[in-house]
């Protein structure tokens, strides 16, 4: 039977994007920014970040919550980019080689992360967050001490003055926007990166197709109830590891797409920012720790970035201080993560209490 549609239910389940839309409806006119400028910014930012946020969908399907461990994939992508820049590659081949280099690294890191998360079932989000910190140490060790000493780096411009270790920031002169500009069309003075959106569309289709496969169905079953899935003969742990590997791999490609759009690498910070940012964007799009769709990704990236662009100007025009608008945006955007995690914890606790009550009733 088709579930009955209720306006109240729809409003409650889409409360976060509605709040953000209302905020945007207020902030956009206050900012004084023109609609064509905002559209141009949104298109550029959607192309830059959608793939990164898309990487979070599969772990949610497998019931592993929001994968803070996606930063591992971003690290793998950055390692690929650093090596590609050192080898003097440019253009599309550079992006493809970076992706080829990042693939085994992200598969390895994804397996490691998935294995650890299997040991910490029920606490995946906080565990993946801490794995991100742990691997950040390993990443810094690799880039600060191994590159230039153990791993040969031939381009002296990339190295620190001491002779080893990669510089804090790097330009990507022959890589900047190669994917965006390879196939693009100009509509009303706006460059639309067709190929980048095509790549994102391919990944969206892959995710949609993946959900219909046997492994995709297994993941859904594992996400609904691990015990039942185990009883049905689904290899729960293997399926969960696979979900994290796919997420890490997409995050690796997402980071490469994002960096080519920006044209610079903030060697020791870029990957740290993407985790929190992508999760906040997904939640702003209306996703929860138990349910995320492709639509949430695009709505989230759009609204989240709209806030990024309009808040400082709105703050400046309203209060006379751009920084205050920015503080408000940070407070609201990242507060969403806290509220979402709180609701998730509350719901889990509620479910556990209900289960205990049912068990007690059964015993009596």
């Amino acid at each position, binding site marked *: 039977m088709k579930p009955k549609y209720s306006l109240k239910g729809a409003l409650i389940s889409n409360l976060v994007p509605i709040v953000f839309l209302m905020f945007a409806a207020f902030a956009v006119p206050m900012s004084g920014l023109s609609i064509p400028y905002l559209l141009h910014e949104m298109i550029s930012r959607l192309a830059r970040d959608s793939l990164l946020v898309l990487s979070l969908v599969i772990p949610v399907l497998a019931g592993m919550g929001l994968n803070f461990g996606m930063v591992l994939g971003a690290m793998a992508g950055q390692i690929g980019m650093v090596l590609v820049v050192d080898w*003097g*590659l*440019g253009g599309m*081949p550079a992006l493809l*080689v970076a992706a*080829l*280099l990042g693939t085994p690294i992200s598969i390895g890191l994804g397996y490691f992360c998935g294995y650890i998360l299997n040991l910490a079932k029920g606490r995946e989000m906080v565990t993946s967050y801490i794995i991100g910190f742990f691997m950040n140490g390993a990443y810094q060790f690799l880039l600060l001490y191994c590159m230039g000493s153990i791993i040969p780096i031939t381009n002296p411009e990339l190295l620190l003055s001491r002779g080893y270790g990669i510089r804090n920031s790097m330009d990507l002169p*022959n890589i900047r926007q190669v994917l965006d500009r390879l196939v693009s069309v100009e509509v009303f003075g706006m460059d639309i990166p067709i190929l980048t959106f095509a790549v994102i569309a391919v990944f969206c289709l892959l995710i949609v197709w993946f959900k219909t496969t046997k492994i995709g169905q297994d993941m859904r079953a594992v996400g609904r109830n691990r015990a039942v899935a185990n009883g049905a003969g689904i290899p729960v742990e293997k399926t969960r590891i696979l979900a994290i590997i796919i997420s890490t791999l997409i995050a690796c490609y997402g980071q490469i797409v994002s960096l080519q759009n920006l044209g610079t690498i903030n060697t020791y910070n870029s990957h740290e920012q993407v985790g929190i940012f992508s999760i906040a964007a997904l939640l702003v799009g209306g996703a929860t720790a138990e349910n995320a769709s492709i639509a949430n990704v695009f709505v989230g990236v759009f609204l989240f970035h709209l806030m990024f662009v309009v808040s400082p100007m709105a703050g400046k025009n309203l209060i006379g201080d751009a920084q205050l608008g920015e503080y408000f945006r940070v407070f609201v955007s990242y507060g969403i993560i806290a509220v979402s995690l709180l609701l998730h914890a509350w719901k889990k606790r509620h479910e556990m209490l209900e289960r205990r009550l049912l068990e007690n009733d059964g015993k009596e």
Partner: protein
Amino acid sequence: MNVKLRRNLLRVALCLIAVAGGFLLSFIGMYHSIILDNSEFSGAGAVLPPLEGLRVVSEAEPVEMSPGDRILVSAKGPSTTLVFEITSPETQQSREISYTLHMGFKKQFFLSVPAIVGGEKDPFFVE
């Protein structure tokens, strides 16, 4: 052939294809720096004077070079063709000389333009 062996063979084949693909992409996507020098060149018993009215056409925008000039051009891929347009200051007659440089995986080249135009077999400067 059992399934496990077939799977492993497939995995090894995929890895080899990825490595070969990476190698090929590196070959076609590599940027090279070419330093062109328009000063006197002496080699193989001949002394070649610098060229006047010289214009270099590479993958980037054409550049004019005076005697004693040294420019840096960048090129992508396994080989590149440099075109030297030389206009005689007296007769105003122009001639064009094409030079194809096979670069492989080497990052930097240091070439003498008078040597290339003079038909020297080895127009490279020793770094």
